[in-house]
């Protein structure tokens, strides 16, 4: 059990922490909880690894696996996202911590941004691991020309995924026994990311004959998605979790 830091080190007697300071406090709280409990590293990453392995059981041909590898990376990311979001809000629901933060007067948008930042960090770690696994298990290679596209795709896709996950996670986790709602809401919403990120990674890795320049329009889509859900999510989060 952990309690959020009160920010006494930076808050002066005249006022509460600034918006961005609060986001940072909440993000670092979440990451500190993870560092102490190690749930992501001990459970979620292995889960992602397992999905990458069992994909090979279902898709028997190695040539097929090589061609669809970018898609499999993002599929595994989507499933792991659901687990990560459950976890991110599970830690809040257990002790009513989310309500406590709101009652204490913390801006709902700061909670949203803070939790989305922490979720992004975990997602990026997850995606890096999945990429390595894809290189090993599905014989992917990363050409030097595709690195910039690859990194940009990972960053922009992650922001969008984190925004959607935090928004719907806040809704689903607030009500006991309603976590089953999360996949139903999240997966259709992140369909654009699945489409765009897969195409962009295909372009970056040169899978199925795609070239790097094919990937940049998709990054544009990912950026718009991230901005739309980042802003929309921050605005919607307060009304959704306040009951």
């Amino acid at each position, binding site marked *: 059990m952990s309690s959020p830091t009160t920010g006494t080190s930076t808050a002066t007697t005249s006022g509460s922490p600034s918006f961005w300071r609060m986001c940072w406090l909440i993000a670092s709280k979440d990451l500190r909880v993870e560092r102490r409990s190690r749930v992501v590293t001990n459970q979620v990453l292995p889960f992602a690894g397992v999905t990458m392995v069992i994909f090979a059981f279902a898709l028997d041909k190695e040539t097929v696996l090589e061609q669809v590898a970018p898609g499999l990376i993002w599929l595994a990311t989507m499933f792991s996202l659901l687990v990560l979001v459950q976890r991110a809000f599970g830690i809040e629901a257990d002790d009513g911590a989310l309500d406590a933060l709101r009652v204490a007067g913390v801006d709902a948008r700061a909670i949203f941004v803070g939790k989305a930042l922490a979720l992004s960090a975990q997602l990026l770690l997850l995606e890096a691991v999945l990429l390595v696994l894809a290189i090993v298990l599905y014989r992917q290679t990363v050409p030097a020309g595709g690195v910039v596209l690859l990194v940009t795709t990972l960053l922009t896709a992650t922001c969008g995924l984190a925004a959607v996950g935090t928004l719907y996670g806040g*809704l689903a986790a607030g*009500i006991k026994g*309603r976590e089953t709602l999360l996949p139903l809401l999240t997966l*259709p919403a992140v369909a654009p990311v699945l489409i765009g990120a897969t195409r962009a990674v295909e372009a970056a890795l040169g899978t199925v004959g795609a070239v790097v320049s094919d990937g940049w329009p998709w990054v544009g889509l990912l950026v718009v998605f991230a901005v739309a859900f980042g802003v929309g999510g921050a605005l919607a989060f307060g009304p959704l979790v306040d009951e």
Partner: protein
Amino acid sequence: MTTTNPDPTDALAGGIPVSAPVVLSTGTRGTRVLGIATIVSMAWLVAFGLGFSPADRDQREAVRILYMHVPTIWVAYMAFVVTALSSAMVLYLGRGGRPQPLGWDRLAGASAEAGTAFVAVTLVVGALWGRLTWGVFWQWDARLTTTALLFVTYIGYLAVRRLGGTHQQRAKRSAVIGLIAVLEIPLVHWSVKLWRSLHQEATVLNTAGDIKMDGLMLFSLFIGVIAFTLFYVWLMLHRTRVMAMEDALEDRGLDDALVARRLEGTI
């Protein structure tokens, strides 16, 4: 439609006598007129769709399915727009701690139900049409994929409406999700369009091609749109009234329980 019930003790609420209801249905003169208009235009639609309108040059008789298919997706889109606007009204009128306007909330919900039902019908009928014209029940082009995701998105919206809690909570939650859905749909549509435009092999079957229709066919389509719009309005009137009664009964049930508990305490 109304009968008088002479026994007032039939309806007792928590020990407090309530006079028996005289109005026994959700029908009014307005809905009866609408209902008749709907039936007439539906009959007209069938007559034209299956009878008077000609077969198409390319699709032959399969074009007759479109007289069902196009109106159903039209109604679905209209219904979802109504849901979005109603959701906006809920949030606007209920801003800053004011009580959420439940009438708009019920319209948002009823409209989403109708929209979802009509998208499902559109997908099924569209699959039948596709089988006749393209030879396949389904393919992953931009329009079909987006429609399928539209369907699932609003299934999610309906699930959020059933999360429980007070009517106020339901109204606010659903309104937010309803507006997020309106954000999602263009994003999905754009990404799917971009996706399918880059995969040229999908356009062997030219699903994006506009179907040329002559005057009588267009007229039949127009009748179809009118008929289904009338049905939609009729359905909304009845469904929102039913939802109002459901909400009222739930509230009274709570009141009854409270009264009963208090009465227990006085014995």
